[in-house]
C-alpha cells in the first residue's frame, strides 16, 4: 500500500462505528481492488505508513467520526461536488441514484454531470451501495476504478451513499447553490456551451426578469398570513393504511402494479382524498402513500407483498427524522410522479424519471432563500426546467411541460409541516420554509421537537377516543394506531377502542398499564372507569391463553428428575409432571443434563415403533419418539404392563382402540399413513381387518359340499360345462368346487354321464 507523509494523521478511536453507513463503506471497500482502495484511502486518510487492507478500511471508516478531518476533506472539494453534498444535506438523504445526482449537477450549470459524482467516489466521500447480508463475505466483481463500477453496478444498481457524518457537516457551510433573489438575471453557464466551475446561473433569461426584488414571482409581500400544516396528515394516513393492511398485506403483480382489490384499497377516501387546505389535487395519492410508507419503514417488501411492520423507530425519534423518512421516496426513482400519478414502468424497463432531481433541487433552492422571503413554486419550476437535461431541447412533449412542482411542494411537502404557504395579491401561491422546514434543511438539533401540547385526547364511555390534531405527532399517532382504529380523520380525529385493537397492541408489546398511562397522560379529562375496566378485561384475557409457536420442551423421565432440574436453577415453566417449557435455549446449562434424545418438530419424524408379527403389539423406541406420539399412541393402542426386569413401553392394538380412532374421524388411509410414519411399514392386514370389520358385509358360517377334482384341468372342465354349472355354488380354488346341496343328485347324474368316478361322503 502507498505511504504518504502527512501531518493530518491522527490517533483513531478503538471502537469502530457500527452505523449502517459504516457497513456500506466496508462493503464498498471490500469490492475495490488493492489499487483502487490504495488510491482512495490515500486521498481520504493520507496514511503515513504502510497499512494492511483491513487497517486502511478501519481508519477510513473512523475518519468520518472526526469532524475536523471531515471539514478539511469538504473544503478540498470542487464547488460542483460541494453542491451535490449540499443538496443531499438539505434533502436529509444519504442514498442517491447516480442519474439523479448527475441531473442536478447538470441543471446547476456544470456541463459534465457525472464528473463530480466520480470525483466524490474517488475522494472516498461517496460509496457505491452493494447490498450484502450483514456479516456475509463480500462476493462479486472487484472494481479497479469508478468507471468500471458505473459500467457494471450489479443488482444493487447505481446507488451512492454519503456517510451520515459527512452530510451532517455540510449543514452550516456556506451555500454554493444559487439564490434566486441575489442574481436573478445571470446567464446560465454550461447551458450556453461555456465551461464553468463557478456558481451557476440563477434565474431565467433577461426578459424573465421582473418583480419587486428582481426575480419573477419572488415576492416579500403576501396578501394573507402564511399557513403551516400541523404536519400529521401523512402519518395519520399511513397509520390508516397500516391498519387496513394488517391482515391482508398489499400485493403487487410481477409487473410491479397492484392487484385490483389492492388498488381499491389504495383509492379509499380515508387514504386518497385531497389533503385539506393544500390547495392542490395530486393524482393517485394513495399509491404515493404506499411508497412513502415503505420508505418510512411502515411496510417492508417481502417478495411481492408490502407487509406492515411494527411502527418504525424513526417515528419515535423526531419530526425531522420522521419527515426525512417519508420524503425519501420522493428523492429516489419510483413509479409515482405528480404529472402522471401512479405509472409503473413496463416489465423489464428500469424506473427512470427526472422528478427526484427536480424535487431535491427545488427543495434546496427554497431552502437557499432568505427566511422571510416568499417565492412562487412556478418560478423555481421554470428556473429548473430551463436547465434540466430532461426538459432541454425541442423534443419535449407538451404533456411533459405541465406544471407539477406546486403540486409536489404544496401537496406532499406542505402537509409535513415543512413549508409555509400563502397567496400573493395576484392570487399566486407563494411558499417559504416553515420553522420546522428550516430545522429540516439546516440540520438544527431537533431532539425535543415533538408536540408540547400534552393533553389532546377525550376518551368517551362508548369507547371512542377523540384526538385533537394540534397535539398529535408521529410518536403519538403510532401509539394510538396500535390500540385504537382510526374512524374519522379531521381537525378532531375519532378512533375506536375494541378487543381486537387492544389485542393487537398487546401483541406488539404494549401492556394494559402502558395503554392506560398513555390515555391518562394525554386525556383532557379523566378516562371513564367503564373504559378502564373494559381495557383491563380485554388485557387480562390475553394472558389466559398462551400460544407458543416454536417452544423448547424438556421431557424428563420422572417428576423427580424435573424437580431436581428446577432446584438446580433451570428456568422453565412446568407443563406437567415430566414436562417443562423453556423460553430461551441459551438459558439451559446443558452440563446439568444427559441428552436422552433430541427432536426437531419441523423435520418429519423417524420411525420409532416396532411391530410384532401380527402387527398388534407395538414397542416404543423412546430415544426416537416424540411428544406427538404421546398423544397419538393412547388413541391407537392400549398400554401393556411392563414385565418385571424389562425396559421400554409396549402397547396393544385392539378393536376397542381402533374404535376410538374411528370416533376421532380417522379413516383407513390416515391410519395406514400413521403406521407408515411411525413404524416405517403399512398397517398390517390384522389391523385392517379390525378397523374395517364393521363396514364389511356380515360374515356367514355354514356347512359346505365340496367337490375335490383330481386335477385343475378336470375342475376347469366341470366349471365351464353349462349343464354342470347349474349344480355349482362357487369355485373355491383350482381343484375345489362348492356344490349346491339340493343339486347333488343332478351332479352325480352328470358325472356318471361322462364316466367320472367319485366317492360321495355326505354326513
Amino acid at each position: 500500500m502507498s505511504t504518504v507523509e502527512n501531518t493530518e494523521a491522527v490517533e483513531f478511536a478503538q471502537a469502530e462505528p457500527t452505523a449502517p453507513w459504516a457497513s456500506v463503506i466496508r462493503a464498498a471497500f471490500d469490492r475495490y481492488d488493492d489499487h483502487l482502495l490504495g488510491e482512495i484511502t490515500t486521498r481520504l486518510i493520507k496514511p503515513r505508513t504502510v497499512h494492511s487492507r483491513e487497517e486502511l478500511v478501519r481508519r477510513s471508516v473512523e475518519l468520518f467520526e472526526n469532524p475536523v478531518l471531515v471539514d478539511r476533506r469538504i473544503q478540498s472539494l470542487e464547488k460542483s461536488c460541494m453542491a451535490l453534498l449540499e443538496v443531499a444535506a438539505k434533502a436529509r438523504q444519504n442514498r442517491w441514484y447516480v442519474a439523479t445526482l448527475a441531473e442536478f449537477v447538470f441543471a446547476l450549470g456544470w456541463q459534465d454531470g457525472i464528473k463530480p459524482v466520480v470525483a466524490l467516489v474517488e475522494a472516498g466521500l461517496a460509496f457505491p451501495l452493494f447490498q450484502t447480508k450483514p456479516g456475509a463475505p463480500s462476493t462479486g466483481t472487484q472494481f479497479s476504478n469508478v468507471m468500471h463500477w458505473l459500467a457494471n453496478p450489479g443488482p444493487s444498481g447505481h446507488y451512492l451513499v454519503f456517510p451520515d457524518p459527512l452530510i451532517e457537516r455540510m449543514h452550516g457551510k456556506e451555500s454554493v447553490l444559487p439564490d434566486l433573489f441575489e442574481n436573478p438575471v445571470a446567464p446560465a453557464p454550461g447551458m450556453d456551451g461555456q465551461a464553468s466551475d463557478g456558481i451557476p446561473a440563477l434565474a431565467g433569461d433577461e426578459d424573465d426578469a421582473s418583480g419587486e426584488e428582481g426575480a419573477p414571482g419572488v415576492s416579500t409581500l403576501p396578501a394573507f398570513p402564511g399557513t403551516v400544516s400541523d404536519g400529521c396528515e401523512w402519518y395519520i394516513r399511513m397509520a390508516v393504511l397500516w391498519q387496513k393492511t394488517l391482515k391482508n398485506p398489499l400485493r403487487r403483480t410481477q409487473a410491479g402494479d397492484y392487484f385490483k382489490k389492492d388498488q381499491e384499497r389504495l383509492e379509499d377516501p380515508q387514504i386518497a382524498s385531497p389533503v385539506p387546505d393544500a390547495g392542490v389535487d395530486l393524482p393517485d395519492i394513495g399509491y404515493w402513500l404506499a411508497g412513502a410508507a415503505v420508505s418510512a419503514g411502515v411496510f417492508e417488501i417481502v417478495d411481492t407483498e408490502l407487509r406492515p411492520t411494527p411502527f418504525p423507530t424513526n417515528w419515535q425519534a423526531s419530526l425531522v427524522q420522521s419527515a426525512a423518512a417519508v420524503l425519501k421516496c420522493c428523492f429516489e426513482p419510483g413509479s409515482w410522479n405528480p404529472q402522471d400519478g401512479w405509472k409503473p414502468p413496463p416489465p423489464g424497463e428500469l424506473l427512470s424519471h427526472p422528478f427526484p432531481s427536480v424535487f431535491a433541487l427545488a427543495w434546496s433552492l427554497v431552502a437557499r432563500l432568505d427566511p422571510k422571503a416568499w417565492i412562487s413554486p412556478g418560478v423555481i419550476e421554470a428556473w429548473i426546467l430551463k436547465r434540466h437535461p430532461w426538459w432541454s431541447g425541442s423534443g419535449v412533449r407538451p404533456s411533459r411541460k405541465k406544471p407539477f412542482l406546486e403540486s409536489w411542494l404544496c401537496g406532499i411537502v406542505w402537509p409535513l409541516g415543512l413549508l409555509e404557504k400563502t397567496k400573493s395579491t395576484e392570487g399566486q401561491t407563494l411558499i417559504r420554509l416553515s420553522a420546522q422546514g428550516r430545522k429540516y434543511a439546516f440540520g438544527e438539533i431537533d431532539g425535543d421537537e415533538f408536540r408540547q401540547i400534552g393533553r389532546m385526547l377525550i376518551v368517551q364511555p362508548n369507547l371512542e377516543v377523540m384526538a385533537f390534531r394540534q397535539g398529535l405527532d408521529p410518536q403519538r399517532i403510532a401509539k394510538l394506531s396500535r390500540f385504537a382504529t382510526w374512524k374519522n380523520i379531521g381537525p378532531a380525529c375519532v378512533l375506536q377502542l375494541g378487543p381486537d385493537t387492544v389485542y393487537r397492541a398487546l401483541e406488539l408489546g404494549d401492556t394494559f398499564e402502558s395503554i392506560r398511562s398513555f390515555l391518562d397522560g394525554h386525556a383532557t379529562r379523566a378516562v371513564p372507569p367503564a373504559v378502564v375496566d373494559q381495557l383491563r378485561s380485554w388485557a387480562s384475557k390475553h394472558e389466559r391463553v398462551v400460544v407458543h409457536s416454536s417452544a423448547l420442551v424438556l421431557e424428563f423421565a420422572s417428576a423427580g428428575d424435573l424437580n431436581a432440574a428446577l432446584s438446580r436453577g433451570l428456568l422453565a415453566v412446568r407443563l406437567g409432571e415430566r414436562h417443562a417449557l423453556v423460553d430461551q435455549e441459551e438459558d439451559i446449562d446443558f452440563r446439568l443434563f444427559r441428552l436422552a434424545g433430541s427432536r426437531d418438530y419441523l423435520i418429519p419424524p423417524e420411525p420409532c415403533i416396532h411391530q410384532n408379527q401380527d402387527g398388534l403389539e407395538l414397542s416404543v423406541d423412546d430415544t426416537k419418539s416424540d411428544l406427538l406420539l404421546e398423544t397419538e399412541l393412547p388413541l391407537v393402542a392400549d398400554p401393556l404392563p411392563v414385565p418385571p426386569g424389562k425396559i421400554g413401553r409396549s402397547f396393544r392394538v385392539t378393536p376397542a382402540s381402533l374404535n376410538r380412532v374411528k370416533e376421532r374421524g380417522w379413516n383407513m388411509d390416515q391410519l395406514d399413513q400413521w403406521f407408515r410414519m411411525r413404524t416405517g411399514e403399512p398397517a398390517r392386514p390384522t389391523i385392517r381387518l379390525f378397523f374395517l370389520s364393521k363396514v364389511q358385509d356380515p360374515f356367514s358360517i355354514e356347512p359346505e359340499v365340496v367337490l375335490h377334482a383330481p386335477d385343475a384341468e378336470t375342475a376347469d372342465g366341470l366349471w365351464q360345462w353349462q349343464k354342470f354349472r347349474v349344480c355349482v355354488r362357487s369355485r373355491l380354488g383350482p381343484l375345489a368346487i362348492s356344490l349346491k346341496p339340493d343339486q347333488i343328485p343332478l351332479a352325480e347324474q352328470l358325472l356318471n354321464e361322462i364316466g367320472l368316478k367319485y366317492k360321495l361322503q355326505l354326513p
Partner: protein
Amino acid sequence: MENGQGSRIPVKVHRRVCVIRSEDPAVIEEILSRKKLQNEIAGRLTASSILVKPGRTEPIVAELLKLGHTPKIVQRPQ
C-alpha cells in the same frame, strides 16, 4: 430425588414445538372440544397444555380469536 446432586439428569429435548398453554382447565377443554380445531391439534400434552401439529399455529390463533380469546403469542427467534 432420583438423581444425586452430582449426577446428570437425563432429558429429552423437543425443539420448535407448538404448544397452547392455559392455567384454566375450562379453556383447555373448550379448545379440545372445538371440532374445527381437530385437524390442527395433536392432543392434550398435560392438564394445562395442548400439543399442536407442527406449523398449524395460524389457524389455531384465528379460531381462538373467533372464540373470543385474545391469546398471547410467544415466538422464539428461528
